[in-house]
């Protein structure tokens, strides 16, 4: 009895401290980090702003380590509500609609207005799909299998069912993801509807050919990077549709389950998701522009700058993560292999990527959604001057809050996973030291990118 009241008091204390830490950092950061346009008005120096962000993540780890009751952690993660939902019949309808939407996007891309703010294809793909829809995947649930138009087409057609070489694992999707992001960064994919339509047509051709050759389950389960991104993001979300029906769980709870990430290739994919969201922001900073100009000035051809930076940065991120896993083996003093540790904690990186995505794209989605709506009402002849919402200044602070919330969820998921893996509770906390250091460094990097003034990426 005394134990349990002491525990409650401790929890209340930890809860209050966490709220206070977020409120303190939130207000301090809101001032500093109002995305790029606001960066000029920062009254707290950048280094202090970054340090505060890192401090919040570090402090949240300290606070999470106060929760040492296994029963409580399990209760939080095992909490679920299941509702039967006969949605299976609906899938045919949603798939048919999304095939129609795909055909429509390509048609409008090739034949619609050339102004990107008036072209429904550009707006649907970037504003509707990549900004808005992706956010619903990690905030609500993964609906992509019910929508994926390419999967729908290949399910309706006979497939060859060739053997997929298992040793390739998830590596093709890692390469595919990096290639897609490279294309997105170096080409005017968001400005040129014709180019966008061509790329979608090309992607469709490759995807359909691959899925018809190896069968849709193999292709979308292993090779297709888009389906894999959605599958991983969907694990952050509270809703999941399974055999029992619709299942509601606390956000991120599914990430602490074992076997979500099975091999080194899947670890690489999770790290790649994190890296590409970072890279996308990095190339928009003036420091990158300076760096790229200096490198090209030194005689390196401009074409190789972006792909080599993309691959080098990915290598750096992978190295940092595996180094943390290696040190974790020492701090936890465990017989588990480095690989087993790396696999077990990789899913905890996904909320960070989701938070970063939301920070990047929520404002973009909201400000351009009227343009999307007006382009959709009349795709071939939309109004000449589409309206755009101008977001208030405090919205930048919200972006910083999303970055931090992603990290806080990540810290918690890693804490819960460690308690599942390690029999000793102190051992579990110790296993997290190296990961927390890496996470603090990463928070500071991503906050730096979010708060840096905007610059046009050179040589693209």
């Amino acid at each position: 009895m005394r134990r349990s009241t002491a525990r409650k008091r401790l929890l209340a204390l930890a809860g209050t401290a966490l709220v206070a830490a977020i409120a303190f950092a939130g207000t301090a950061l809101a001032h500093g980090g109002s995305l790029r346009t606001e960066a000029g008005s920062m009254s707290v120096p950048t280094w202090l702003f970054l340090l505060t962000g890192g401090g919040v993540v570090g402090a949240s780890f300290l606070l999470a380590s106060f929760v040492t009751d296994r029963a409580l952690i399990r209760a939080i993660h095992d909490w679920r509500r299941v509702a039967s939902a006969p949605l299976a019949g609906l899938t045919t309808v949603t798939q048919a609609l999304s095939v129609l939407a795909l055909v429509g996007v390509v048609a409008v891309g090739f034949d619609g207005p050339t102004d990107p703010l008036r072209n429904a294809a550009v707006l649907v793909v970037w504003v509707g799909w990549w900004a808005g829809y992706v956010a619903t995947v990690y905030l609500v649930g993964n609906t992509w299998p019910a929508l994926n138009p390419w999967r729908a087409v290949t399910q309706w057609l006979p497939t060859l069912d060739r053997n997929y070489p298992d040793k390739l694992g998830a590596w093709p999707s890692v390469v595919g993801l990096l290639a897609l992001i490279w294309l997105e960064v170096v080409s005017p994919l968001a400005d040129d509807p014709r180019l966008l339509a061509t790329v979608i047509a090309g992607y469709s051709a490759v995807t359909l050919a691959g899925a018809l050759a190896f069968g849709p389950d193999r292709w979308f389960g292993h090779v297709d990077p888009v389906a894999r991104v959605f599958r991983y993001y969907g694990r952050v979300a509270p809703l999941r549709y399974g055999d029992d029906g619709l299942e509601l769980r606390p956000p991120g709870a599914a990430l602490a389950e074992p076997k979500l990430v099975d091999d080194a290739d899947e670890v690489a994919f999770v790290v790649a998701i994190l890296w590409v969201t970072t890279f996308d922001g990095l190339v928009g900073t003036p420091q990158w522009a300076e760096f790229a100009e200096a490198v090209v000035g030194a005689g390196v051809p401009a074409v190789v700058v972006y792909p080599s930076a993309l691959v080098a940065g990915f290598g750096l991120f992978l190295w940092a993560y595996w180094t943390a896993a290696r040190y974790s083996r020492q701090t936890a003093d465990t017989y588990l292999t480095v690989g087993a540790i790396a696999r077990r904690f990789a899913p905890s990186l996904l909320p960070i990527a989701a938070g970063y995505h939301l920070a990047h794209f929520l404002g973009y989605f909201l400000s351009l959604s009227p343009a999307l709506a007006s382009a959709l009402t009349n795709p071939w002849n939309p109004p000449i001057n589409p309206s755009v919402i101008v977001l208030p200044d405090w919205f930048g602070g919200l972006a910083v809050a999303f970055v931090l919330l992603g990290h806080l969820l990540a810290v918690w998921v890693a804490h819960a996973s460690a308690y599942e893996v390690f029999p000793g509770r102190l051992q579990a906390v110790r296993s997290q030291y190296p990961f927390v250091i890496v996470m603090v460094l990463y928070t500071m990097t991503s906050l730096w990118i979010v708060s840096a003034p905007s610059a046009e990426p050179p040589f693209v």
Partner: protein
Amino acid sequence: MTDSNLTDSPDETGYETSVPPEESPAECPYCGRPLESERLLVLHEGLDHWERLDDDRREAFQEAYVGEGDDLRTFRLKMLALLVVVYFAFLFVYSYVMEDPFSSTNAALLLVGCWRGVR
């Protein structure tokens, strides 16, 4: 770290492990996972194989679990001390940066200032 073996996983507790050749681990009789000490083995058995334990082992588990409490209490105190240090370090850094190093009301002013700045 040459001797590596993949423990089979009857209860989803299978983990890839590698034991340095000079060490003799305490091996779990139910899933074969090598544990780093007898105490960790007792904890592991209680957490992952509770249904299969006899009363003695269950009691040993409960003792070991409660026994972790002392270490955890010390650990929490250290963490609390660290939190206090971090908090005050930030407080001082902020008051220095805001160019009013001796005022203890700086934190409050900072919050108000930020809030107004945000608006």
